[in-house]
């Protein structure tokens, strides 16, 4: 259940970021044949960086958290099974 909620949150934030990143392009400046230095790629003027940054960090946190949750769930399942078997063996002995 928790994993499902986390996955939903993740996909929502990713799609939100993608939508934000595709804002309509602004009007190009009048003197479009002016020399643009190579360090200034045109995409920079149109894309806001914040949604991308937030999504990146959010993804890292969510994925790491989801993994820890997954491992701990598997661990508790195995540990319960071990306890059950050990008590069974003790009962038989």
């Amino acid at each position, binding site marked *: 259940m928790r994993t499902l909620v986390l996955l939903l949150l993740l996909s929502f934030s990713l799609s939100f970021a993608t939508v934000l990143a595709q804002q309509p392009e602004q009007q190009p400046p009048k003197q479009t044949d002016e020399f643009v230095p190579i360090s200034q790629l045109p995409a920079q003027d149109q894309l806001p960086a914040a949604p991308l940054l937030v999504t990146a960090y959010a993804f890292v946190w969510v994925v790491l958290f989801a993994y820890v949750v997954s491992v701990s769930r598997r661990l508790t399942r195995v540990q319960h099974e*071990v306890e059950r078997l050990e008590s069974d063996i003790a009962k038989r002995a």
Partner: protein
Amino acid sequence: MPKWFVPLAAVTALMFAASPFLIANAPYEATMGLVQKIFYYHLPSAWVFLLSAIVCGIASARFLFGGSPRQDRLAYAAAELTVLFGAIVLVTGPLWARKAWGVWWQWDVRLTSSLMGWMVAWAYLLVRKYGGPGSDKLAAGLALFGMANVPFVYISVNYWRTIHPATSVVPTLPVDMGVALWFAVACFLLLFVLLLRLRVYLEEQRARLDTLYLSLDE
């Protein structure tokens, strides 16, 4: 939960909580501005991704030639972490690239070989899960080939003309950026050790369960 888990987890969590402050204090990069700050998590996770692939490969070799089940458990855990940290690299990278390069993805050497290494790790997990008997050795053989890919991923960007920055960027960072970066590297390395030991512990418990089932049958 084993004894070392809570203290190690607490230290790692605290360091991770501190890292955004260091990252926010680092200066802006001249051309890319705010989006460059993804770098402070992207690069350490890439290093951990490659490190994890190497750990998996070495453990696999030791398992294949020595037969130690402990090495097999280590290899399985490392493969899972390779997939995890590889996913982080392959998502944070394109998010950064969308603004910095204008495209989400490019088939240059660094990106293609990283994706390939990640898929090898996935294949390892699939083989372990669905391969049936003998799949541990099979996967170990695969991991060796995957490890051979790692040096190529690292140096490819220095010898080919790629859109991805070269490895010379890191030693030449200004100090304020360097502090944030190396702190993040320390965070990720601690996290790697924590997750690896936790995952190996899970495998050990599973092995214990198997021996219990076997003793029950007798």
